[in-house]
């Protein structure tokens, strides 16, 4: 899958907030404050449709918070945004997902006490059996269940998890859980897939396959927006890169252009000038005030994958 050239994406000179030819998300004046700290303060940004966009930036730049806002998992102090031309600001998370915008999480949220297959089935939409009264009568939901089971099976085969279908998700490796989470998100046939650090804690053997899957999504006509720290990954698959620092969008552009921009390197790296951008992979984002158990599970996750 060749990269989409810059000229096909933008409708104007490349700069932060540049309008896109075919935007899927258009956000304006989005801000989110925690106490005295402004985590997100995005004046204007557009996400191009049917492309792979990477959202990068130093720790605490507000990338994940921005993600949470767009997907309804957090509420902004100010701002509006549209998804496929329809207003989506302050819509609750589950409705956002139903509109075709699904996400994964930085700390993988595979449901470990359910089987891999049940995880997948949970991702499906339009299952009448999820209604409490209809659930009591199996004939009312059985045929849909068969349909989504077939779809789940084929997705699991694609992600090479089919042999694990009846295992508890807790028995999967960290990388496999990332795969499962992505596969599960695809059950609902979304238009936009938002991946929060898809490569974090994934062992190198699985990295290539994960990258392949992300590229596949674009090929199938979906749009991908992902947060990532590993610059090699960004370079390899992203058509477009948006750089955030201190809550703002500070740069945009094609991967090669953006990463050679000294201003970006400055903003991005802060004190770590001598660090090669490519070696930042897999680093843990430990935000200030983060709950200890989250930090702990982060560390455990990383340790598990290191073995």
């Amino acid at each position, binding site marked *: 899958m060749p990269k989409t050239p810059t000229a096909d994406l933008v409708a104007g000179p490349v700069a932060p907030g540049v309008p896109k030819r075919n935007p899927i998300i258009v956000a304006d004046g989005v801000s989110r404050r925690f106490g005295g700290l402004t985590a997100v303060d995005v004046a204007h940004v557009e996400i191009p449709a049917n492309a792979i966009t990477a959202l990068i930036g130093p720790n605490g730049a507000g990338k994940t918070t921005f993600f949470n806002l767009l997907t309804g*998992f957090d509420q902004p102090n100010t701002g509006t945004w549209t998804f496929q031309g329809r207003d989506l600001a302050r819509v609750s998370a589950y409705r956002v997902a139903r509109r075709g915008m699904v996400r994964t999480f930085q700390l993988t*949220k*595979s449901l*470990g006490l359910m089987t891999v297959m049940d995880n997948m*089935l949970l991702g499906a939409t339009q299952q009448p*059996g999820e209604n409490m009264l209809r*659930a009591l009568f199996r004939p009312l*939901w059985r045929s849909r269940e068969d349909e989504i089971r077939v779809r789940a099976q084929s997705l699991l085969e694609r992600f090479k998890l089919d042999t694990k279908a009846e295992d508890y998700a807790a028995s999967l490796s960290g990388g496999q859980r990332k795969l499962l989470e992505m596969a599960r998100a695809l059950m609902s046939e979304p238009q936009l897939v938002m991946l929060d650090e898809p490569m974090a804690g994934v062992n190198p053997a699985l990295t290539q396959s994960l990258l392949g899957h992300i590229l596949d999504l674009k090929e199938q006509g979906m749009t991908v927006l992902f947060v990532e720290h590993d610059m090699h990954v960004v370079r390899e698959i992203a058509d477009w890169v948006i750089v955030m620092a201190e809550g703002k969008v500070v740069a945009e552009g094609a991967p090669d252009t953006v990463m050679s921009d000294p201003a970006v390197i400055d903003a991005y790296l802060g004190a770590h000038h001598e660090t090669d951008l490519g070696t930042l992979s897999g680093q843990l984002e430990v935000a200030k005030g983060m709950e200890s158990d989250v930090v702990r599970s982060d560390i455990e996750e990383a340790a598990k994958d290191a073995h």
Partner: protein
Amino acid sequence: MNLNFIWLALGEAISPTTAAYALATIGLVVHFGFTGLLNFGQAGFMAVGGYAFAITTLKLGLPLPFAFLAAILASAAFALVLGIPTLRLRSDYLAIVTIAAAEIIRLSVKTPELTDITGGATGLNGAAATFNALNPIPDGRYGIGVLTYTADQLWVRVLGWALVLIACLIVFLLIRSPWGRVIKGIREDEDAVRSLGKNVFSYKMQALVLGGVLGGLAGALFILPRSLQPDNYGTQLTFFLYTIMLLGGATTVFGPLVGSMLFWVVLSLSDGLLSLGVRSGLLPLTSTQQGPIRFIIVGAALALLVVFRPQGLLGKKKEVFFSA
């Protein structure tokens, strides 16, 4: 030596009280075991159901079906009142709100000002009259040995256990359905389920109402063989239900049934053995020291179960979501 107590203890396995506890615990399993809702106020649901039942029959003089309907509606309304504001909050907040709400119910019905309706601190008596009037079983004595029941005693047992089995069946069907899948997803990680387009709040509310209604029906069943006493619905009742739930298995449909039977048989047996020991002079206890022992047993059992066998008798260790 009189060993009748052994038979009587075994008889506890099918007593209406055991059925009522099993039913309330099924509700708790829906809340805690399958949805992960930390409801520490199941006693409150039982109280609401019991009072609704008793007031409808005794004060309004309505026929039995209305009384059961009132118990269902009242406990569902209680679930809504509790759930709307709290289901968005952290899970331990729900625990404190529910335990407080249950206590508020118990204290409020006791106020002398409400004596005309609730019977105040003495409660209400005779709610079973309309129930017994519908008893189709001909008068007589049924059973063997010391386990002999009057027609009314048999009737309440039959209906009580029928209710329990119906509840088990409904919950069993629900849990194995896609609805149950969503619920189990929520108990583990509600954000994950939300990200998949499910209205988590609505599901939690449905589960709260379902479990609450089962609690309310249990409250009605509970007062059929006895009078309604407000102080029966203290926090200890909820803790007993937790013990039963953990005994049978918190993530199982039939655990409450087994748990409740075992709980009451063991308690009755221990009571009987203690009495025997005291009367024969083997145990140096006064009669007032006998009573507390069962509570000490329950407390210790609760603490030990949750640590050493969180899956209970019937559950699978791998599905224990709350021990990590």
